[in-house]
């Protein structure tokens, strides 16, 4: 299937506001055809151009282009190659908003009679002769071509390419309006994200926090040993949201965090993972207790599907840009200047010089879909604290009750007691000699409070595990281990 067909079919599956801002592949293609006609009418059909350009070393050609771009009126001479009587340079003038491509033909009139007499006529020379004849007719038409005589026996023909100007104009405008649109999209997404964040905060709030807000734990009123966190989980979807976010993170829909596969996922891979995640969420949705939670989950899913659409759109658009430029080169035989090439390789961090096309959204190192995924990670996910951020590094359970060592590192009371019994003096994380100095005053009550609120189930489980373990240890120390168990 032709790309233009695939492309328009793909665009049909995307939301209309994205579709409207896509690259107009067909129109651009039409302009290329016009350009080819325009060139042919000048006697510069692709084959002719091809041969003319092949005479010149491609690397020196790019150098020439760069040089000429800077000093427009300096004519590059043909490094003393007597056989070469003409050169063609495809050059760009204009500003970032308005680019005018044109052809510069430098034709050297043979001055030496001997040169002609020696019969240095090759095929390309004969083409050039034809061209020279043609150029004389062009010369008569002053409106179309600028001629400047740079020296006595060389003159330059400058042929503005109208269809090509239109081509770059269209491409440039499309990319600029796209950049603007994506900016709006970004803004809209961020504000939706903010209101979703409020909605989720409201439905995932721990039940106990309002009841306890004026009676925080302190050493004076609470004997840590008798503390029992409330059972929680009534009238809140705290645990459901935690599970949803956990599943979301583990699904690694848009990006992989695996040690061997780190990075952005392909469009196909993202699609598959998104579908799997959606399926799992359908089950989860029924377990949500509050109506507000269900609505919020729907919004959350829509936002992720939107990112997926944006990702597909970005891919299609980049592909269309790449293909159309490739077609441009292939059909006209005109080499594209090197500063346009970054387009071909997708988003590159290199920022183009100020006079270039406005391609910023595709050239910035971070693509928009990626930026939006990051925003979800920064704004939404931290609403529900994750147990891994509050777990003891030694037992990997919730660090309950939390002991903060003088060096600042956090462990659960159970693991700290074990370390002390073994006589280990140094902090397991930083090796500072803080372990044996720890006592009751090292309990982090603010954090203990927080954990009891946000992790009511985990704290209860951990507390009873701690007690069971401690009791068993005590028996063992008394020499009653093994078969004689009181519990």
């Amino acid at each position, binding site marked *: 299937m032709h790309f233009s067909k695939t492309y328009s079919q793909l665009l049909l599956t995307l939301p209309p506001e994205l579709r409207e801002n896509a690259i107009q592949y067909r129109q651009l293609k039409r302009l290329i055809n016009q350009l080819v006609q325009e060139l042919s009418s000048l006697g510069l059909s692709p084959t002719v151009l091809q041969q003319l350009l092949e005479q010149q070393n491609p690397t020196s050609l790019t150098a020439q282009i760069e040089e000429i771009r800077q000093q427009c009126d300096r004519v590059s001479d043909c490094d003393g190659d007597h056989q070469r009587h003409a050169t063609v340079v495809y050059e760009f003038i204009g500003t970032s908003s308005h680019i005018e491509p044109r052809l510069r033909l430098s034709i050297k009139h043979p001055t030496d009679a001997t040169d002609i007499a020696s019969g240095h006529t090759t095929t390309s020379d004969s083409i050039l002769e034809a061209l020279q004849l043609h150029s004389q007719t062009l010369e008569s038409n002053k409106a179309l071509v600028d001629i400047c005589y740079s020296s006595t026996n060389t003159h330059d023909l400058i042929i503005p390419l109208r269809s090509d100007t239109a081509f770059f104009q269209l491409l440039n405008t499309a990319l600029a309006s796209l950049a603007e649109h994506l900016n709006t999209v970004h803004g809209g997404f961020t504000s939706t994200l903010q209101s979703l964040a409020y909605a989720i905060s409201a439905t995932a709030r721990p039940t106990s926090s309002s009841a306890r807000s004026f009676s925080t734990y302190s050493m004076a009123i609470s004997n840590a040993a008798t503390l029992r966190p409330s059972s929680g989980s009534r009238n809140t979807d705290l645990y459901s949201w935690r599970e949803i976010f956990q599943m979301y993170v583990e699904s690694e829909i848009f990006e992989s965090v*695996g*040690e*061997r596969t780190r990075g952005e996922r392909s469009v196909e891979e993202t699609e598959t993972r998104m579908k799997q995640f959606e399926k799992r969420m359908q089950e989860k949705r029924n377990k949500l207790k509050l109506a507000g939670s269900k609505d919020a989950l729907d919004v959350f899913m829509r936002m992720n599907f939107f990112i997926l659409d944006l990702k597909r759109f970005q891919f299609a658009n980049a592909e269309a840009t790449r293909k159309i430029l490739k077609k441009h080169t292939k059909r006209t035989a005109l080499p594209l200047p090197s500063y346009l090439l970054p387009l071909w390789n997708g988003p590159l961090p290199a920022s183009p010089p100020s006079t270039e096309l406005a391609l910023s959204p595709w050239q910035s190192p971070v693509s928009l879909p990626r930026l939006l995924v990051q925003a979800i990670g920064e704004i939404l996910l931290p609403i529900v604290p994750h147990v891994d951020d509050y777990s003891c*590094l*030694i*037992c*990997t*359970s919730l660090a309950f009750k939390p002991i903060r060592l003088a060096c600042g590192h956090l462990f659960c009371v159970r*693991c700290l007691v*074990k*370390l002390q019994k*073994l006589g*280990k003096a*140094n902090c*397991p*994380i930083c*090796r500072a000699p803080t372990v044996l100095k720890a006592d009751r005053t090292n309990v982090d009550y603010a954090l203990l409070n927080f954990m009891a609120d946000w992790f009511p189930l985990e704290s209860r489980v951990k507390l009873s595990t701690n007690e069971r373990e401690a009791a068993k240890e005590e028996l063992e120390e008394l020499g009653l281990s093994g078969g004689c168990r009181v519990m």
Partner: protein
Amino acid sequence: MALPKRIIKETERLVADPAPGITAAPHEDNLRYFDVTIQGPDGSPFQQGVFHLELFLPEEYPMSPPKVRFLTKIYHPNIDKLGRICLDILKDKWSPALQIRTVLLSIQALLSAPNPDDPLATDVAKHYKEDEKDAQRVSREWTEKYASK
């Protein structure tokens, strides 16, 4: 005896998201016993080699370090004939904040940076100190002979 949560978590991650050049899989009948392979690091005499190790988590783990031993013969100043490894974090510098993963990465790093000043295999260390080039040649030979894939 139930397996502690920490060991279960570590095992899951080792299998699901292995560190580059390292594999570790627990025995079905003893979940505290792991079959380990470490690829010789590029740029070391052990490059291209795949070394087999055994790793055992004692009852006290993570309060005491895992026991690790090379099963593949290796010519290295800090690894002896029996495959025992001289590495501080496996002995007095052990910390319960370290993990199976970090231990194996340290061993992989030890292959890149032999330390003949703190030897376990004294003859190999002597060789490395007196003629490093020749010692590396032997290490390469052994790698090819005993640790090829």
